[in-house]
Each structure stands twice: as structure tokens, then as C-alpha cells.
């Protein structure tokens, strides 16, 4: 048992220690969603409407930056010795994802400090479901980043996917306009886009308006999406390579 949890715990801790030593990273992750939000929010005179989207964007940026490091780390870095250690791959995957998800979560919580600007008041009791929802979304997006990064040869490829897939995915998730007002095929995309349910989940827990999918539905889809991604990560990492991962 300890041979499973010890490696996972050590990787999780490593992410946190690294993060603590490079605190300026917080600024890079939180600043741009904050600027987007303030510009769009003040511009349209509706900060509340775009708040959940900006929060999820913060979490997404953090998850992407953490998982992008897998690509370099595997070629030249700590991941190399993990790959030739007897620790089960599944425990390494869990440790890495939990570590990165925790960082994304912390940055999401930092963004939560700006909630009063959106007119959201969060009491101590409401904080629990809100924090839990942010963690679930952090976990899911980190899993998504991992699946993309694991097979990738270079960080340049990841940037392309970020611009062509992840950012557009965020745009049609209800972050900018609600599903109810969307037209035709965009609406269909929104309906199958897992991020739509993440944004809705945030809107529900923060008691913000225009939440198209229901609360339980949002929670269920986000959780299932996260589990599927975790499983995919585990399977990918367990595969034997005929072309070296490093």
C-alpha cells in the first residue's frame, strides 16, 4: 500500500514546494483572466455574468501550465527517474494530477477573492461547496492537460492545441454567452462540451444567473468527465513504449 501512496504523495508535495518557490507564477495565471474579466465585465456592465467563466479560465491556465511541464520534464528532468523507478505508473499519474490540480485549485481560490466585485458574497458555509466545485473542475482540466501532454513531443504542439482546442472550448462553454441564446451548431457544440457543465456548476454554486444545465446534471457530467480522463491518463502512462518516451 505504501508503495502506491508514498510515490503519489511525494509527487504531490513536489508540485507544491516548486510552486511555493516560484510564487510569481500566480501572477501569470491569475492576471490575464482577471484583466479579461474586468474589461468584458465593465464594458458590458455585467461583471456577474462573466465571473464563472473567468474563474474557470484561471483554473484552466494553471492546469495547462502545470501539465505542459510534463513534456520537458520527461526529456530532461525529474520525470525521467520516475519512469525507471519501480513505483506503479498509476501512482505517479495520480500524484502528478493531484499536485497540479491542487495548484489550479489554489489559484482558483485566489480568483475567488474577487467575487465581491461580481456582487457575490460567500459565507463560511457556502465556501465548502464552492471550493469543492473548483477542485473538481481543477482536477478535470488537469486530467485533460495530462492526456494532451503525455504523447506530445514538443511544447510548441501543446500551444497549438491550446489555441485551437482549449481556448475555443472555453469560449463556447457558456462563459461568454449562455446556451439558451446560442444558435444552431454552436448550441450543439455547447451541449456536448464538458466545459459547459463546469461553468454551469460554478454558476450554481455561486448562485449566479443563467445556468442552463441543471445543478445535478452539471455536477454529474463534470465528475464523470474527470474520472474518464483519470482513467485515460492511467492507461496511457502504463503503455509500454517501443519508441522511448524520453
Amino acid at each position, binding site marked *: 500500500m505504501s508503495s502506491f501512496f508514498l510515490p503519489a504523495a511525494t509527487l504531490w508535495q513536489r508540485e507544491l514546494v516548486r510552486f511555493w518557490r516560484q510564487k510569481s507564477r500566480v501572477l501569470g495565471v491569475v492576471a490575464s483572466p482577471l484583466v479579461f474579466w474586468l474589461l468584458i465585465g465593465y464594458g458590458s456592465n455585467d461583471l456577474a455574468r462573466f465571473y464563472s467563466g473567468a474563474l474557470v479560465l484561471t483554473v484552466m491556465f494553471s492546469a495547462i501550465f502545470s501539465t505542459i511541464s510534463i513534456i520537458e520534464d520527461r526529456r*530532461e528532468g*525529474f520525470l525521467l527517474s520516475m519512469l525507471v*523507478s519501480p513505483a506503479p505508473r498509476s501512482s505517479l499519474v495520480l500524484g502528478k494530477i493531484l499536485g497540479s490540480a491542487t495548484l489550479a485549485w489554489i489559484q482558483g481560490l485566489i480568483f475567488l477573492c474577487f467575487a465581491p466585485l461580481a456582487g457575490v458574497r460567500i459565507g463560511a458555509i457556502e465556501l465548502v461547496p464552492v471550493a469543492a466545485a473548483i477542485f473538481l473542475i481543477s482536477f478535470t482540466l488537469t486530467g485533460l492537460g495530462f492526456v494532451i501532454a503525455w504523447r506530445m513531443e514538443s511544447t510548441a504542439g501543446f500551444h497549438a492545441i491550446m489555441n485551437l482546442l482549449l481556448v475555443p472550448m472555453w469560449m463556447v462553454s457558456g462563459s461568454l454567452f449562455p446556451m439558451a441564446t446560442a444558435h444552431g451548431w454552436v448550441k450543439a457544440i455547447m451541449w456536448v462540451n464538458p466545459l459547459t457543465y463546469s461553468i454551469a456548476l460554478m454558476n450554481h454554486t455561486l448562485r449566479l444567473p443563467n445556468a442552463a444545465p441543471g445543478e445535478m446534471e452539471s455536477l454529474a457530467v463534470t465528475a464523470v468527465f474527470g474520472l474518464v480522463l483519470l482513467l485515460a491518463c492511467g492507461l496511457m502512462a502504463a503503455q509500454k513504449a517501443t*519508441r522511448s518516451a524520453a
Partner: protein
Amino acid sequence: MIQVQNLTHRYGDRSALSHVSFEVKKGEIFGLLGPNGGGKSTLFRILATMMVPTEGSAAIAGCDVERDAAEVRRRVGVVFQTQSLDKALTVEENLRAQGHLHGLSGAVLRERMGDAMERLGLADRRKDLVETLSGGLRRRVEIAKALLHRPQVLLMDEASTGLDPAARRDLSRNVASLRDNQGVTILLTTHILEEADRCDRLALLHQGKIVKQGSPGELRSGIGGDVVVLETGDPAALAGGIAQRFGAQPTLMDGQVRVEIENGHRFIAEVVEAFPGAVDSVRLNKPTLEDVFVHETGASIE
């Protein structure tokens, strides 16, 4: 301790290793010498269980690298050519994380860490961030890290790359002491001749094939006598002349004529006299591993 049988690996239709076989005995320092792209790294990755070969088999301490990868990983320490340390962590934190990956913890881990740092002269740097260490010191941390779980076999991939000569000698001393004091079997890849010279046995790897194996001394004695290298304005003509007159088989390399011949000093006097004005400079060498490699493959290591 290490058995490699008929190992073949292809990347698509490019063959990186073909039918490589060799054995490494317990307590031996075994070197794989060859130019970059000769197949050393592929072989290293297969032995380190980072990828599986397309054909053939390899076993370390009786465990198959493909079927028993987890067992192999428990018995093998790996030092990579590139850095495998976390630069944002201290020496101690890197070692502790590595120990955890091997299921070590508590007092046992503390003792092993203290031991490894002591042996590699890192004790006073334990609290330093790895990014503040020199290349030579980082290498030592890499080795300390690879030894934490007391492996029977240490695999090192071009471990001296980027080190200055002093740090390189220091590394060789550490490796030799591991063999002598701990009975660790060491397999290393290198393209550096002086490093290869310090191995107990070597395999020369060229274009994915082993062209020769043996101790450095045995390999060198395979070359008859001396190596004479001549510089000249017209290498082809001089080589032709030498072949005709001395019955030797000169080779052309980088615009120089290279001759393997006994009693090189006598040959030099004769050749300069026989081709007046044709020879610009002459060099007489006792055979090096480079000469052995050239002799076997017609190509240079560098």
C-alpha cells in the same frame, strides 16, 4: 549480471540495433564505446526499461527487461545523460523524493541519504538548491540518487558529458570505488576514449552492431605495432605509393594517410626518403582505442 541476446531494435524501417549480444559479469565496469547515433542510447534505454526491443532479449540480474520490468527497476540504478534532478528542490529533497519512489522512508531512508551524500562528498551541500550547483556536483547528486536503493547494477548514459577533465576523473574514481567497495556492476555508454580506457571490458558499437569486444588492452593488441599518420598534399597518391612499396594497407581519413605498421619509427624514415617532398608532417602513435575503432570500422568515433 547482464545478458543481452540478439537484441534488435527498429524505429520504423530504420534499424538502430541489429543482433547485439554480450554479457557483463558481476563487479565489472563494462563500456559501450561508439559514435553518437551508433546505437548506444537505444541499447541503454532498453536496458533501463524505458522501451521494449523489437526483437531479442535482455536480462539484468536474471530478470527480463521486458516481462519483469518492475523487478529490473528495483535492482538497477540509472544515471541519465540529461539531468533528472528537480532544479527547484534541494539536494536533500531530490534524494528524499527518489527514496520515496523506491518505497524507502523513515529512518532507513535518512540513513541511506546520509550515506550516499557522505560517500559522494555532498554532505555540506545538502540544503542547497540544485540550480546553484556546478555541473560536476550535479552529476554526483545524480549518482547518489541512483544508488539510494542499493542497486546491484548501475547504468550510466554518457554520464561525463559536459564535465571538465577534473570532474570527469573524479567521476571515474567514484565509479571505480563503487565496483571495488560495493561490488556494483556498472554498464556505461561513452564516446570519450579516456573514459573507455578505464573500463574493465568494452564493446565497440558501430551502426547498431558490436564490431569488437574485449578489455582495452586486448583490443589495442589487435592492431599490429604502431599507427603512423602522414599529412600530405596528395593523400591518394601517397597512399597508393605506400601500398605498392611497403605492402601496407593505408587508409585515408580527413585528408590524412593512416598506416598501421610494425616498427613505425623505421617506416617513417623510409617513407620520407622514398617520397621526397611529399610528406608535410608525420605523427607516430601507439594504438589508441580510436585506432582500434578506425581499424574495425573505417570510421572515426568523434
